[in-house]
């Protein structure tokens, strides 16, 4: 079985204390799981801003043709 590997990140102790306090009553069981959660949230919102369309104008015209043929577009 390949269990997932973890790595260690250092954060200032006062920050860790602050996080520990903030965690109370949230259901998080460790500073690590809390920090993981927050980082995933932050990174995903940064990535969302970088977002591009992902299909060319040419593709788009072809798609519109089919959508019109099927009656989805007028």
């Amino acid at each position, binding site marked *: 079985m*390949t269990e997932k590997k973890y790595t260690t990140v250092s954060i200032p102790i006062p920050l860790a204390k602050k996080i520990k306090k903030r965690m109370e009553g949230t259901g998080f069981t460790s500073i690590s799981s809390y920090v993981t959660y927050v980082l995933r949230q932050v990174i995903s919102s940064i990535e969302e801003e970088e977002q591009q369309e992902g299909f060319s104008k040419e593709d788009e015209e072809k798609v519109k043709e089919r959508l019109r043929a*099927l009656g989805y*577009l007028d």
Partner: protein
Amino acid sequence: MPKPHGGTLINRIVSSSKKERLLEEAESMTTLKLNGGLRKDVENIASGVYSPLEGFLCRDDFENVLHHDRLSSDIPWTIPITLDVDKATADELKREEEIILQTETGASFAMMSIEEIYGYDKDHMAESVYGTTNEAHPGVQKVRNMDDFLIGGEITQINETDSGFQNYNLRPIETRVLFKEKGWRTVVGFQTRNVPHLGHEYVQKTALTFVDGIFINPIIGEKKTGDYLDEVILDSYQTLMDNYYLKNRAVMSILQAEMRYAGPKEAIFHAILRKNFGCTHFIVGRDHAGVGDHYGPYAAQDIFDRFPDLDITPVFFKSFTYCEKCGGAVDGFICPHGEEHRENFSGTKMRKILMEGKIPPEHMMRPEVARIVIDADPKFVE
């Protein structure tokens, strides 16, 4: 529009210029026949419905999904998409780098590169996906019946298979262009496998009050005996939309996939698929994708707390009943009247009335919708 899951809309459908060459190569290659569910998985991978997957999971991703509900790239993913084969086939395919995938009737429709063949623990898989190893659960039953080895590797679709309902079969690139053309900045996805009653309509229209459009996305495919037939569901929804929805606010197309009845894990999976279609929101009702009483009524809503990086907003609904005093659909948080004034939107009861050829009360089901069901013969999966 939300970016596709993982950032890129996957397209593994071969271009027409390469198609002929691949078909020629295919003639000398080893073939593997896939059942309907696996065929749909291949097509969903190829068209980007399952983005970022580019093939069936290799062991690293498979284990990571079971342990952490994420691919090894840390992208949320809760249902392992796997291709199972028996020992003899596994031994035979070990010698191959690429194989041809065929439909049950022997039509070649995709190519697969074999990256890895591996064994797996069925109990672990059942426990992780379904939260139980109880064989009364249809999903657990399915895992038990799977063959003992999994093949991982990328696929490329060469030919479209005829899955029916071509007029309602939009790929993610098509729904994305469609939403854009309609000027929808926010779109809520609605998953269904039922004929619509007033309770469904209430949920959909409530959601529509705060988003630009609704994407009605029935699951088409293998169902349980007694479920409504796919065409009955599509016809009844089309009728509902024609009569009771604004044309520029609602769109319907199908999702070809098997129900897994994995409750919470499947709710996340369903949300990811709708994000790939271009939805910004996804409706999760009571006991979404549940079966029997295997999951808590709101487990499929609570699980979203664990995924801050899903990038699609779940919209949670409780279950609604009809209140004669309010004159509409209500839940316990909006209606002050007692149980004696309320009536459940009971699918079972409506089905019974419809089977007698009668129209259910108008506060339960639109008469136009009821008429479609009454006129359909057969109505149900046998």
